[in-house]
Every structure is written in C-alpha cells, then in structure tokens.
C-alpha cells in the first residue's frame, strides 16, 4: 500500500545519523523531525538563522522573535545558535549541512528539480530552495509519485522552471525510494505491498529495476 505522509517521513528519518546537522523543508520534510531514531541526535538548521531548532513553544513561551523558515513559532534547542541570513546560507552553500530534505513538483532523471513555480498559476518565490539544492551534497526529495490526475512527476525531463540542475540523487515517494545516476532513476526500495509494476507504470522517466527490490521497513 502506498505510504502515508507520516510513513514517508519515517523512511527518511532512517537516513539520519547521530551528529547530523539537518535542514528540513516545509511539508512532509518537517514531519521527519518526529521520527528521529532512538540513540540518534540531530540538530535542525533553519535557514532564517537558527541552528538547533527545538519543539513548538507553549502559549507561555511563544516569542515572535523566534520563528523557523516556515514562519512558525519555535523554540531553540540546548546548544543552539542564532545568526544572520548571510551566515545561514554560508553554512548551506558551503556544504556544512549533512542532510537536506525538501519537497518538489517534479524531478527528472538528470537530477533536475522543479519546486518553486508553476507559470501563470503559482508564484511563491524560491525562498531558500535554490541555495539548499545547490549547496547540499546529501539531498533527499520527498514528493508524490504522480499528481492527482495520475500524471507522473518522476520525469525524463522537468517541464516546470527548475530550482536546480543536476543536483538530486535520491527521491522518496509514497511508492518507492529511488536513486538517480547515469541519467536514469534506479529503483532501490518499494513501499510495502506496492508492486514493481505499479511503480513502473507511474514513472515516466527511465527506471532501472534490479532483480530484487526489497520492501521498505516502515
């Protein structure tokens, strides 16, 4: 069965390692924070100027001067640091963040990602997304495999304006975990009970399927 949003987050969380500095985008990526494995400590970076994002505040501790990149009120974890936007993106652009998780509208087999604009329809601006995809070595994209009309978002070539070129290597959808290399998606894991055929059918891109595609452990 296709993964829920929470299950996608759980699968991503398995990639967290003790001591990782992590930037989580808005949406499903944010949920990853709820599934940090036991014995693993991570520090969350928020690109508006916070390393060490804590949980949400209480009504008593809420502070308008302390928000995350999604503009939600948050707290600072023990050992946190505040800094300017220039310093924050020096961290990101300089490759100091160990793992970045973000959403996308489309990803293609060259590693291109489109996530910030639908011409004529939706203009939110790219915010920090272009810097995040350009700066991180280790990026996981979480997204739905196809849109609500069943049209694949795992493509040979992105149709929307790009957020970054040739920068994405791993994608987790409700159906599969895939790696991008040598100009194709490679199926690595499938959601429990989801067949390789279903994944193949919903994937417009070239998909390399190994003999054995294990089920995810979520």
């Amino acid at each position, binding site marked *: 069965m296709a993964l829920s949003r929470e299950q996608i987050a759980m699968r991503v969380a398995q990639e967290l390692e003790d001591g990782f500095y992590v930037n989580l985008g808005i949406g499903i990526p944010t949920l990853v924070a709820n599934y940090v494995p036991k014995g693993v400590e991570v520090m969350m970076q928020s690109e508006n100027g916070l390393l060490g994002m804590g949980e949400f505040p209480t009504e008593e501790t809420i502070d308008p001067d302390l928000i995350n*990149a999604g503009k939600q009120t948050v707290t600072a974890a023990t050992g946190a640091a505040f800094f300017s*936007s220039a310093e924050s993106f020096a961290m990101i652009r300089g490759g100091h963040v160990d793992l970045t998780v973000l959403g996308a509208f489309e990803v293609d087999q060259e590693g291109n990602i489109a996530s910030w604009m639908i011409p004529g329809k939706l203009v939110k601006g790219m915010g920090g997304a272009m810097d995040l995809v350009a700066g991180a070595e280790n990026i996981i994209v979480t997204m739905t495999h196809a849109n609500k009309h069943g049209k694949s978002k795992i493509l040979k070539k992105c149709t929307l304006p790009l957020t970054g070129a040739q920068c994405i290597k791993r994608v987790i959808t409700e159906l599969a975990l895939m790696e991008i290399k040598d100009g194709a998606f490679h199926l690595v894991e499938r959601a429990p009970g989801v067949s390789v055929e279903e994944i193949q059918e919903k994937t417009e891109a070239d998909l390399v399927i190994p003999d054995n595609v294990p089920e995810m452990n979520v």
Partner: protein
Amino acid sequence: MSGFNKVVNSYEEALEGFKDDMTVMVGGFGLCGIPEGLIEQVHQLGAKGLTAISNNAGVDGFGLGKWLDKRQISTMIGSYVGENELFEKLLLSGEMEVILTPQGTLAEKIRAGGAGIPAFFTATGFGTQVAEGKETRNIDGRDYVLEPSLTADFALVKAWKADTMGNLIFNKTAMNFNPMMATAGKITVAEVEEIVEPGELDPNFIHTPGIYVQRVIKGDKFEKRIEQRTVKQS
C-alpha cells in the same frame, strides 16, 4: 553634541532625505524583525517608484504590504512572495517588476554590497531562470553564476538594542537580513526596542558595529505580528 550620537527623536528625522525613486532595503524575514515604524513612515510619506529590497513583502495590509497598497514599489527584489495575495497579483499582472532572487544569493549580494565586493560566483541558480542573462563559469568542475552585489540609498533595519553610537544587537531569529542590510545602505536607519549608553553593550558581542549605522530611533511600538502561531499540544 558628539558626532557619534546617532539618536534621532522622530520618524520624520529618521527618514530625512527619503525620496521618490530611491532604492531601499528593509530588514526582516516574513514579519519577524521588520522595522515597523519606519515602514509606516515611508507609507505616510507616500514616496513612489521605490526599488525595495527585502526577503518578503509583508502580508496583505501589514509590513511592506502597506507599500503595495499604495503602489509605492516599482521594483521588488526578494526571494519569497508567500501568502501575500496583492504581491502575487501585482507580479502576475506585471504592474510591479519583481526580481525573484534565491534567499542565500540575496543575503550574499547585500553582504557583498556592504563589503565592497562588486560581484561573486555562486552555484545557486545555475541552470535555472535565475541564471538567465548572467555570466556563468565552470570552476574546478562545478558550474557557477556571477552575481552582482546590491546597495541601497536607505537601509531600514530593526534591532533589539542599540547604544547611542549605533552599535546594534539583534534578538534571536529577528536578526535575519538586518545585519547585512545595515552595512549596505548609504544611510542606515536602525529602529530599536531599547537605546542604551555607550559601554553598556559588551564590545565582544556587538552584532553590527556603529560604523555602519547613521541614525537610531527608538520604536514607539512593535506589534510583532505572528504569521504561523504554532504551539505544543500539552
């Protein structure tokens, strides 16, 4: 009076010399850390044709949203439109020129402007619309875009505390774009919550040295509106 006393006592004085068609930087991320009183004063002045440099453009009717209401901005340089309907409308209609700039590139362009760096290379935006019309270059196997720096006639920033000499400290994530913008304005005006005497701020922990700041005003009120009020379920 000492040449280092930067304190002004009215918003009029704080924005003396502010004119139509100027370039103005405004600190803040969303509504966090914005110079509310200075924004209101520009709104009152009604200056038009502004080039505004700010990560966001406020929300409908608050923050830079007020300038949008009066169509005071002709060109907006920022990274995120967000939930500002009027902004999106002015953008899509072409009524306002909008130069969407990646957030980190925007921060670095402003820092560069203040630091006398006219241009720098960054990988951000390579292969995207952002790189269109810009020089690109492969350096050691990676592709980069050349980004020119930004400066402004006025930089309007919000700080937590200032001393009378213009040394500033910021509070938590209300820092964001404010320190860089402070360095990049020909005239930098800091709206602050508290003004103290020189020597009261620890010289080891000044975020913005006074050399960058021309005027300091104590804000008369800060609404500090919250965009996403999220609290823990207890």
